[in-house]
């Protein structure tokens, strides 16, 4: 069995825990606690990590790790990025400045991104509201990062599997 470590990171409330729960074949190990930041509008928030697993066929298994979103937990970002072969950056499109949100993670994980596969996922996206998907792609290009930017509903197992597929294609191309 070949195992790969995949890391889900990105803005608070973008759906990192939800995405892992959508595809994991084991009960997801969560470190959710009561959220006390009322500006975020959610009950629980991840303070350490999430962990789930999904197998692909009979030969490959993905170990899925999720980070906390808040920058005050950035020490966990560094711990969890060790050994990751793929990075999924989730951005909540309904937030005030999703482009700036993306830049936080692109910047912090730039060394990891350079060495691994990466997909940027816009969640909760309403296409009638700016910024458009192209704005995110342009921002990636300005940072010399050529990786897919997609829109997805991370509550849907099929869509999360598709995101993982986008990572695996890149990982295979690197081998």
């Amino acid at each position, binding site marked *: 069995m070949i195992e790969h470590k995949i890391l889900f990171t990105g803005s608070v409330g973008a759906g990192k825990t939800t995405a892992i729960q959508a595809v994991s074949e084991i009960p997801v*190990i*969560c*470190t959710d*606690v*009561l*959220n*006390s*930041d*009322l*500006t*975020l509008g959610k009950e629980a*928030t991840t*303070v*350490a*990590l999430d962990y789930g697993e999904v197998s692909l066929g009979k030969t490959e298994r993905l170990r899925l790790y999720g980070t*906390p979103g*808040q*920058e*005050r*937990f950035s*020490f*966990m970002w560094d711990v969890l990025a060790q050994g990751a072969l793929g990075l999924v950056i989730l951005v909540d499109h309904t937030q005030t400045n999703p482009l700036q949100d993306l830049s936080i993670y692109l910047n912090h994980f730039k060394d990891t991104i350079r060495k691994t596969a990466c997909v940027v996922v816009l969640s909760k996206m309403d296409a009638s509201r700016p910024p458009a998907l192209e704005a995110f792609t342009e921002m990636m290009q300005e940072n010399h990062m050529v990786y897919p930017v997609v829109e997805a509903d991370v509550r849907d197992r099929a869509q999360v599997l598709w995101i993982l597929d986008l990572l695996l294609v890149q990982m295979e191309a690197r081998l």
Partner: protein
Amino acid sequence: MTVNPAEKKTSSSGKRRPVNKELCAKAGYILGLFVEKLGGIGVKSAVIATTDGFDVASVAMSEEEGAKLSALSSSISAIGDMAIKEIGIGVSHQSITIESESGYIFIMDIRHPNCPMVLSIAASKDAVLGKLIYYARQVVAKMIEA
């Protein structure tokens, strides 16, 4: 040593955190007493933080250090609970001690009915660990009723 109740600070999003002033002030007072009882021996810093990593009160450290120890402690506490559950030896930890060559970090959860919190104490090897834990338990008991 200076006590810093955190009621004036804001979250990263710029808006006030919902931990009320009264609770912050009480936490500051209780932490101050704790350091006094230990005669300040060995205690480098102590924080009371929400379980999601915001400082409620801190002692003997800068604001930045208080914020950092708060976030670290909430993560460590959550990982402790996770390990206890996964291994099947309970539902939550009662305390976590991390020992280094020159000191300790001691963490206890404060199961306050409205505002779950974490107590975290960083101490040097000069600290008498038994005494520190004895008084830390008193802090937790007082904070649950705060």
